[in-house]
């Protein structure tokens, strides 16, 4: 995961053209189309995925200043979800192998997984290049070669390993590997493989060969969402019961569907929304659902990028020694405020951060100007978040402000379509600001810069009471800090001072509540929503209630049936 958006202090010298707005992609698939041509630098439109939360254009007063934009309900979007083949992540793959064979595999040296900058499980980045195909093939060969005869016999419905039991073995194991009943075509294909492998001295070899083939089969490696074979000619289709089981289980728990869920699919129960919801609730009661929720929240908060945060020791002495404690802090915080049982967006934004021990407490108060009375409230006060969103030697109000805009409010700060950076002057003098705030306020001193930075930096200024490593401070370079800022172009616009007021304001935001549902959609559906009005998002937000409870939100999201799937 990475931080996107405007660069750092250097933008003070660059300049951005006037007209910067938060993205308003209200229409399904909205956003302006790219129109660039030779020699003409142009912006590109979004894919409608961005933060259109307000509706209409920016509201400005008579002086042209952007003013508050109240929340408006999204327009229902009938957009369909395309049929897809969703590659298992390496972690899911290992769990699936374990379920099929009861054996563990090591995926730590597998080909690296792609990262499209959103969530790592997104379906569009699941590509099988030759190195990964080779990883799959070698792993299948090794894990099947390592099975004892007794283990193989245990996998055979007849308990025997002879030619007469081959078809039953294939049907049983293909059903298990493919997470659906094996079709006659499946049995036929793998019987052909069995026959090619037969004839040698080792009677187990053909059975191992079948298992190898199943573990490299696309029906095993992908979560196919293509509907029933009989519906091939239909442009619109529904997921089969078994596809629903696979979707719900992998999405909610990161694991393949268990026997109980597959039995329900066999009985045709899952197309009934009420019954699907019952099974979803059961899945959410499992410990792995909690792990999956934590995985989502961790990626949402970009905590996984924390390990890349580097700090200058001379500026933030002791940072490296408390890195593990910062990780423990976020773990404890998510266990408290982001659990399946009691987690909510309100808690994530406004609950006190639990102490992660005396060493981290001491580090947080190691700046000589720390007052000793400050509070750490909500996710924006986590050491991991604050230090990740900063420079090695400074804070970055721009990075912090963009984080709130993009991750908490689902807003893109959108440059105008004809934006082109002006050429730089060779004689430009460098500014020498005393404080970080002063440096970033240079952005607002030039109109071309201000249009974007006025939407971003004031939010970051609220967090200036935490330095670049998340320590409390009241002064910078001997100058008293000013943590006053403002929220503009949100539904909770107001002057804001300090991190606690910011957390409280965001806790009241309906845009933030909707954004939580949208972020969850991106993770649990493995794709970016075509607009804010898609049914799962609307249903999830409604179910989550006033404090945006996570459990009903996720349950409604995954149980949603208010949309179609199409072959496009």
């Amino acid at each position, binding site marked *: 995961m990475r931080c*996107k958006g405007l*660069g*750092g202090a*250097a933008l003070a010298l*660059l300049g951005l053209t006037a007209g910067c707005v938060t993205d308003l992609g209200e229409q399904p698939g909205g956003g302006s189309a790219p129109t*660039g041509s*030779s020699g003409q*630098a142009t*912006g*590109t439109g979004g894919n409608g*995925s961005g933060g259109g939360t307000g509706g209409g254009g920016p509201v400005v007063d008579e002086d042209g200043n952007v003013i508050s934009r109240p929340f408006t309900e999204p327009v229902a979007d009938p957009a369909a979800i*395309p*049929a897809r*083949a969703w590659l298992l992540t390496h972690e899911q793959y290992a769990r699936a192998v374990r379920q099929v064979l009861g054996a563990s595999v*090591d995926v730590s*040296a*597998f*080909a690296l997984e*792609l*990262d*499209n*900058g*959103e969530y790592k499980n*997104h379906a*569009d*980045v699941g590509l*099988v*290049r*030759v190195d990964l*195909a*080779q990883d799959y*093939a*070698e792993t299948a*060969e*090794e894990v099947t070669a390592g099975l004892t005869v007794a283990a193989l016999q245990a996998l055979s419905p007849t308990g025997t390993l002879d030619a007469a039991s081959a078809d039953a073995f294939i049907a049983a194991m293909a059903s298990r590997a493919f997470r659906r009943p094996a079709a006659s075509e499946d049995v036929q294909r793998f019987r*052909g*493989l069995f026959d*090619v*492998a037969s004839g040698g001295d080792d009677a187990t070899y053909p059975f191992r*060969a079948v298992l*190898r*083939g199943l573990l490299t*089969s*696309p029906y095993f490696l*992908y979560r*196919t969402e*293509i509907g029933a074979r009989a519906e*091939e000619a239909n442009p619109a289709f529904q997921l089969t019961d078994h596809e629903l089981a696979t979707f719900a289980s992998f999405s909610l728990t990161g694991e393949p569907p268990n026997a109980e869920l597959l039995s329900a699919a066999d009985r045709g129960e899952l197309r009934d929304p009420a019954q699907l919801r019952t099974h979803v609730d059961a899945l959410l009661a499992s410990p792995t659902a909690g792990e999956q929720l934590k995985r989502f929240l961790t990626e949402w908060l970009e905590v996984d990028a924390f390990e*890349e945060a*580097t700090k200058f020791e001379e500026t933030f002495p002791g940072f490296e020694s408390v890195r593990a404690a910062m990780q423990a802090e976020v773990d404890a915080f998510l266990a408290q405020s982001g659990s399946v049982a009691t987690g909510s967006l309100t808690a994530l934004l406004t609950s006190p951060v639990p102490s992660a021990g005396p060493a981290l407490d001491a580090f947080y108060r190691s700046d000589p100007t720390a007052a000793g009375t400050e509070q750490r409230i909500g996710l924006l006060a986590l050491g991991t978040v604050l230090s990740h969103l900063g*420079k*090695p030697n400074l804070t970055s109000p721009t990075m912090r402000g963009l984080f709130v805009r993009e991750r908490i409010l689902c807003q893109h700060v959108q440059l105008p379509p004809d*934006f*082109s*950076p002006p050429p*730089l002057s060779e004689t*430009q003098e*460098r500014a020498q600001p005393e404080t970080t705030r002063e440096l970033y306020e240079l952005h607002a001193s030039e109109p071309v810069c201000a249009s974007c930075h006025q939407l971003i930096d004031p939010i970051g200024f609220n967090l200036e009471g935490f330095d670049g490593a998340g320590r409390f401070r009241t002064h910078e370079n001997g100058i008293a800090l000013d943590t006053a800022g403002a929220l503009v172009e949100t539904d909770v616009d107001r002057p804001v001072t300090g991190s606690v007021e910011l957390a409280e304001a965001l806790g009241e935001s309906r845009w933030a509540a909707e954004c939580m549902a949208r972020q969850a959609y991106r993770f649990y559906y493995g794709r*970016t929503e075509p607009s804010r009005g898609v049914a799962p998002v609307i249903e999830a937000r409604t179910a989550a209630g006033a404090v945006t409870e996570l459990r009903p939100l996720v349950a409604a999201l995954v149980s949603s049936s208010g949309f179609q799937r199409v072959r*496009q």
Partner: protein
Amino acid sequence: MPRNLMSRRRILKSSLGALLLLPLLRQRKLQAQAANPKRLVLAFTPDSNPPEWWPTAGGELGFTLQGPLEDFRGLEQHLMFIRQLDHSWTYDNHHVAGIVQLFTGARWVAQGSNEYAAGPSIDQVLLRDTDIRGGTARPSIHLGADDGRTDARHIICYTGSGQPIINEINPQRAFDDIFDGVTFGGTQEPPDPPDPSDPAAEREVAVEQRQLDVNVEELREIQRFLGQEEREKLELHVTSLEELRARITAAPGGDGGPVTVGGTCEEVATRSFSSRDLTNETALTEWARIQADLIVNAFTCDRTRIASLSFSFSGGHHNGLLGFSGSWHDDVAHVSRTNDSVSVRGQTMTTRQAFIEFSRYWGSHIAYLTRRLSEITEGDGSMLDNTLVIWGVESGTNHSHNPRDMQYLLAGGRNMGFQTGQFLQLPSTQSVHRLHTSVLNGFGHPAAGFGIEPSSGPLAGVVG
């Protein structure tokens, strides 16, 4: 998971493996005799360069190199500079937009949620549409010195829309993949003679082939239910399985066996290298050279004819590199028009001087690769004559967050007609798509344009 390819090893010792090998061997030898191989290297270094990166007028060839390209001295006749070449679109600070279109000429798939390029890079187009591969063991190799992340800031080559190719940053892994089965030292171990008494090995080969057949058949079946985008994703999987099939049946040393087309096919020492530290100049330099050596020797062993070499990533700050404690991005590149003082390698200098040092450092790695290629005799000239190196960066001159006056340096490729030894001062601004098109044309591809300008035409003066 060790890459032991147990089944492959068995195949190579089987009669069937040897039988499969022979026609390919003959084919490769004939190709080597028939023509000089054409090769392409795409290279990326981060940030951009100060104005001194451009040569001044004068000198035997009409241009003279300045400080940032000091390490290219003596190679001038192999170089081509092109001024007034612009990227055709930009967004935000151009960091991601710049690297996305660097060699693809494409836009991204979707801004904000998937910023991978929405089209293939020129190397992959050549692989797809021409015979540049020539039967080599690997279609292309993609090496880098980077931090292991895989988002769009770290990718320069693409198979197709939304299909990025991840760089291999681990030299040992790169070596194991590129030279899998190669015997070094000048003597090629012949494959074991056919062993008709080993039906188990034959059966294993048959099983592997059948397994691939089944999996391909299944992929084809799933494709019927999908839209275009998803079908293309699975087509990549099919291609990978066919490539895997080729690897399984290939001989030690690849299908080319002992054929070498220039220099000596020799082993690159990678095993002692483990420090992948992007802030340590000594370690990074060694890392860069090992990766460059791997490319050179992949060429001399004719393991591939397409490579990319990528350093760090777009938008990086490189804190700590060259002994400078601040951010090269914020505290040097963007303020290099001032006379602020900074400390680099323990010496105090102006930010302008520092930027030149920084630029030279990255350029030195490309110069090393270029010089090595120039020192290997091949035919009547050097390996560089049969290899085009294209080096690009992410931003316009002076790290301006601007898509204008992009610094693309072409090196080599004389035998393909690339008119090196000149500083091409374009009379007016041209889009980079013209350069892409010229490169494709130089390799025999009939493209009329590239990327988002499919009719851009070539750039006059690049290929003669």
